[in-house]
């Protein structure tokens, strides 16, 4: 029972996702393996952007430059892959991503300028950097990168893109969460002063969290390259979508509470809602309104449950 209670929000999201999957089947009975595969592919860049955002939100910050960092990483990898092998290009891109995140974090810690201001400024800096690297869409993607997210593994309907994403996120997040640094991230997020007095190196912890944000953004940029085969210097609509998924996924914007599983399931919920609205031929101008309404509805419902949970039942 305590497992259910502890993970009630995530379990609820999973249930909601499966219900939405059912709705999709209801509208389009032929929705099957290929539908799941394209859903998982579409979710990839959003999932990494959301993971990136979640880490800094948990540490008590926010990073508005996530989409711009993704653009820098996508064009960096696209340019590098024209001249070198895919693996070194990926490693360099990941290092570039982590470095950008680290720069964001160090600026916030050292200058004491609010995170929202620093990362807003860096949004423009990274956007310009991406355009300097590649002023119009171009470059190339290693074939193995493109194939890595196509098709299913083990059984039909278990999309390879989903497995790739889950493995990458788990390999980074699970050890991190269980490490000293992970504990420090949660401690700093819930109460910076208390964490500091308990001996947590708050500044270093924050900077590290932003570096991980940059690293996840780099994976996001690589997934864009894997999807399209080209690098696009202009950032896509990932910033606000990431914030939305983080909130919907049960991470408190104040920090210290939540994980990555909830937000990533939230990404899938938001993607499948778009699929449903497309399948049902809903007016595209209404689509975004419906998306926003569902989001705020679910979060409000969650807050309502929390309030009831605290009451003297």
């Amino acid at each position, binding site marked *: 029972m305590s497992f*259910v209670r502890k993970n009630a929000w995530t379990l*609820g999201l999973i*249930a*909601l996702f499966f*219900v939405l999957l059912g709705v999709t089947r209801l509208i389009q009975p032929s929705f099957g393996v290929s539908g799941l595969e394209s859903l998982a*592919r579409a979710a990839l860049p959003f999932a990494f952007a959301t993971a990136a955002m979640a880490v800094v939100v948990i540490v008590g910050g926010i990073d508005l430059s996530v989409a711009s960092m993704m653009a820098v990483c996508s064009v960096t990898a696209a340019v590098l892959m024209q001249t070198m092998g895919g693996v070194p290009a990926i490693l360099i891109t990941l290092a570039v991503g982590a470095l950008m995140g680290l720069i964001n974090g160090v600026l916030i810690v050292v200058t004491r300028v609010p995170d929202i201001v620093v990362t807003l400024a860096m949004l423009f800096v990274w956007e310009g950097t991406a355009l300097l690297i590649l002023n119009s869409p171009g470059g190339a993607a290693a074939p193995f990168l493109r194939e890595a997210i196509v098709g299913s593994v083990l059984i039909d309907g278990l999309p390879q893109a989903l497995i790739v994403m889950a493995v990458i996120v788990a390999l980074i997040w699970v050890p991190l969460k269980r490490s000293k640094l992970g504990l420090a991230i949660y401690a700093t997020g819930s109460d910076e002063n208390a964490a500091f007095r308990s001996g947590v190196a708050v500044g270093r912890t924050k900077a590290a969290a932003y570096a991980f944000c940059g690293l996840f953004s780099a994976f996001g940029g690589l997934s864009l390259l894997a*999807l399209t085969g080209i690098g696009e210097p202009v950032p896509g609509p990932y910033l606000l979508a990431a914030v939305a998924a983080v909130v919907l996924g049960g991470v408190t914007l104040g920090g210290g509470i939540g994980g990555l599983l909830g937000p990533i399931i939230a990404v899938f919920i938001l*993607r499948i809602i778009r699929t449903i609205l497309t399948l*049902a031929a*809903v007016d595209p101008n209404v689509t975004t309104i419906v998306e926003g309404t569902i989001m705020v509805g679910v979060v409000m419902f969650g807050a309502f449950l929390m309030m009831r949970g605290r009451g003297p039942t």
Partner: protein
Amino acid sequence: MTRRLMMGAAVAALSVTVAPAAFADAHGGYTIGVSNTVQGNGWREEMICAMRAQALVEPDVTGLIVAHRNTDSAGQLEDINNLIEAGVDAIVLNPSNPDALNSALEAAMAAGIVVVAVDAGVTAEGAYILSNNQEEYAYLGARWLFEQLGGEGDVVYMRGIAGVSADTDRDNGFRRALAEFPGIEVVHEVFTGWQQDQGKQQMFDFLATGIPFDGVWTSGIDNVIVDAFVESGAPLVPIVGADNAGFVQYLTTVEGLQGAAVTNPGSVGGAGIALAVDILNGEAPDSTTVLVDPVLWENTTDEGRATIMAAQNPNLDPEWPVSVSIPGWTDYTMEQIIACEGPGEG
């Protein structure tokens, strides 16, 4: 336990609100999917409305699914894949990039879906491309201008953005016309960047040099060039522009202005729907690339003036190109494109 029950209730309520729209799914006839990644731009909005209006008047089309939002190539891939899942018979898209969408477009064609790219090309093998003939656009306007000058004189050549395919195509057309008129000299060539303010400033600067010239060819940055002449008090020379509402209005209202508007219709989207239906009905064109030829409206003859007057409509969005239909391709009325309603849309 109650919590989870309530979650279930919320989910059920959600499903009910979403489900009724499912009846939009068409039976018999064709369902066409549309994908576009720029929302809120006059040319693109006209394109979408032309698609809806044409789908409405095509007797074989019973459903239209429009995925129309501001997004990147990855988002357009998502939309195209969703359209494939929706089981459409054809996809008409304005591609965000010629190379980025191939994986989804190839999957669509493998599933037997007709793919028509409008306005810009895609490199996916087997996809049809329908766009305005930009070379002819420049040639028509330039030839009219050079004829207007009696085959003799100096012209200012105001281009778009260097390196963009539409600009390159237009340059080819302009050079072709130039080669036919050896007496014509280009005294000044600039890139406006397709920016109104930049083009206007460039014209101010050139007028200030005092170098005489006899005509101006613009790549669509047109009404501000007229403004520059009027504001600086310089005598007007013949000006060629596009069929933007502002310039077309000037052609009928500015005293002493001789000019011509060459059409660059956003209604090429409607032509894309017509082409998709033709292909579905087994009447595919011989070539996978179809170019729509522009027409020229000039204000120096009574006939030309009448055409311009007929094209204007106060109900038309001022941001739209004035040419709302393409003869030989689109079949809808002006009322239908303004209404902007397609078949079977929720």
